């Protein structure tokens, strides 16, 4: 009967152990809400169009424009930005580039993805991608690790002939992210996400005056994560429980089955 109980407890523990593993592989919870996706793009950091993760934003522009969007990214996410530019029918070779900046306007490196690509003369479209590093909850001020907050995307042509300047192009942009989970859960956290103008915005909220324009009013669908939860709690608790079980097991081993054989009955 004791054996059954122990086995039952162990089975329960292993059930729990499967949970963090499953959480790792779950895709980003961002649902596609294309119905209200923006159809414009900004022309500077200040005027960047805000999009949500999972939305496909479109914009009509001219070759030579600097198109800006911004999206929120939270701790534990690894964002991927994908851009497609539809080019006019006739054009010479031109090189397009997508750059991602964080809320402090620091350029963020792409781990992989074609950040810059040259479209051959007459090519119909060019596709760009940038996979950022995993956003962490905290980093030292001297590092430029990605932190939770606003991310700016700048899409532009970096090399073109004068003849192609100003020709109409159509851009599509989408930001998704992979949930990296507890593996990226670091200690420490920012008091406020890296959202530009947040000091002014929170002061306004306190006043009760609603400003018509803010630098960035970006926020994920379910708010910024508080940063205390990670699956490390499950792993650690599970480890503790298993250690306790192993301890009981080890102890039982030294006692043998039942009373020691050397002890005479009725001692």
């Amino acid at each position, binding site marked *: 009967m004791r054996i059954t109980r122990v086995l039952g407890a162990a089975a329960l523990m292993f059930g729990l*152990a499967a949970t963090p593993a499953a*959480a790792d592989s779950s895709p980003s919870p961002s649902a596609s809400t294309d119905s209200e996706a923006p159809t*414009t793009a900004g022309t*500077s*950091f*200040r*005027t960047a169009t805000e999009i949500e993760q999972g939305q496909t934003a479109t914009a009509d522009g*001219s070759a*030579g*424009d600097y198109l800006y969007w911004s999206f929120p990214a939270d701790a534990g996410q690894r964002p991927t930005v994908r851009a497609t530019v539809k080019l006019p029918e006739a054009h010479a070779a031109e090189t397009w580039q997508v750059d991602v900046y*964080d*809320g*402090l*306007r*620091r*350029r963020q490196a792409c781990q992989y993805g074609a950040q810059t690509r040259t479209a051959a003369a007459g090519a119909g479209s060019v596709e760009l991608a940038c996979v950022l590093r995993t956003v962490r*909850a*905290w980093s030292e*001020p*001297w590092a430029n690790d990605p932190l939770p907050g606003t991310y700016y995307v700048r899409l*532009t042509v970096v*090399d073109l002939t*004068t003849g192609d*300047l*100003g020709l109409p192009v159509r851009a599509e942009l989408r930001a998704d992210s992979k949930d990296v989970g507890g593996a990226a*859960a670091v*200690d*420490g*956290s*920012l*008091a406020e996400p890296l959202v*530009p103008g*947040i*000091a*002014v915005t*929170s*002061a306004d*909220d*306190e006043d009760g005056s609603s*400003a018509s324009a803010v*630098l960035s009013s970006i926020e994920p669908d*379910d*708010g*910024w994560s*508080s*940063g*205390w*939860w990670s699956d*490390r709690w499950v*792993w*650690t608790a599970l*480890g503790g429980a*298993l250690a306790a079980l*192993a*301890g009981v*097991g*080890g*102890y039982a*081993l*030294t006692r043998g089955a039942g009373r020691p054989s050397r002890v005479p009955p009725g001692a």
Partner: protein
Amino acid sequence: MITSKRLAAGVCALLAALTAGVAFPAAALAGEPTGEATPQVDLVLDVSGSMRTRDIDGGTRMAAAKQAFNEVLDATPEDVELGIRTLGANYPGDDQKTGCKDTAQLYPVGPLDRTEAKTAVATLSPTGWTPIGPALLKAADDFDGDGSKRIVLISDGEDTCAPLDPCEVAREIAAKGIGLTIDTLGLVPNAKMRQQLSCIAEATGGTYTSVEHTDELTDRVNQLVDRAADPVVTPVATEGAASCAKAPTLKSGLYTDREEFGQQRWYRVDVEPGKELRASVSVGADRAVNPSYGVLLRAVTVRGREIVRGEAAGDGRTDAVSTGLRYPKAERENEDEAAAESVCLQVTNSFSAASGVKTTPGLPLELTVDVVDGPSQASDVASFGLGRGWWLLGALILAGFVAGLLWGWLSRWRVAVWRTN
């Protein structure tokens, strides 16, 4: 799991809101939008003789422009004040001096009467010169108020009023700091015109578009008018000093300044203990600059020790190069320490230009300052020092097992000792 996450996020947001309330007294902060300012757009239309050319969808360029204007006037949002200015509409003669003064306000920038504006547009017929520079100068005076301002210049030829370079005119207008953007549209453009119009647009952070069809013209002008209607934070003009001692003190907000090639700009921000300073800076390339460039933002103590820096460098075509930094100031350890530290921000750029390019006014500089609550420092690499992974489980199980064994042996030994005694 998700519920608890949300609950925790809510509690934290509440806490953050409360602390932010304590942190920021109800004082007017710089960069705060006025809210009431009406966006203004001035459409500047070229009515020079060349607009008679029949090469847009089988009609004249003028007909295309008129049709586009009618549609734009219908689609203009209510909260945008729209005006129309013409260039080369009245003087048909050959005298350049007179021809280059030929710019007139067809419809003043203000609340829009669609019928009246349309009637005014209908009277236009292609006539004279193409005085783009003078027209831009006059158009800049058409605005009043402190809302966003936008000039949409539609032209089919390059400026005919040398030596006044419209590109430099645009840069000077932008340097006035009235927050004016010039967007340009070229009708059936040639190479030289493309360069000139895109130069005008670049100088003010605007866009340039080539137009070959009427619907393209309508769509683009509509898009630009709509863009003007989007509320945008208006930056506050400031002037950085050459050294920290003379630098202006900034609060949280958005600022603009001008910085010449190789110039240093210093600003100061007061940071209280337990607060975090966030600063980002963009230096714009509003003229032809050499391909390699950079910008450096340093946070320095008043005594000249560097705290942290942000640096960015780039290569090739760009509108701006930006960087930023964070400086969390530690909590006060004893009461004797000064209340707030004055942090100096130094901005330098390594832009350069070919010898013919004018160096004044300086490059546009945009500075964002946010002073927020400090972060909670990390005491461990992992979140709360918690562990994760199969190695952790293995190590804990092993440790537990060994502890159990030892405990078992120990108690057996004690029993044996007790029995022998």
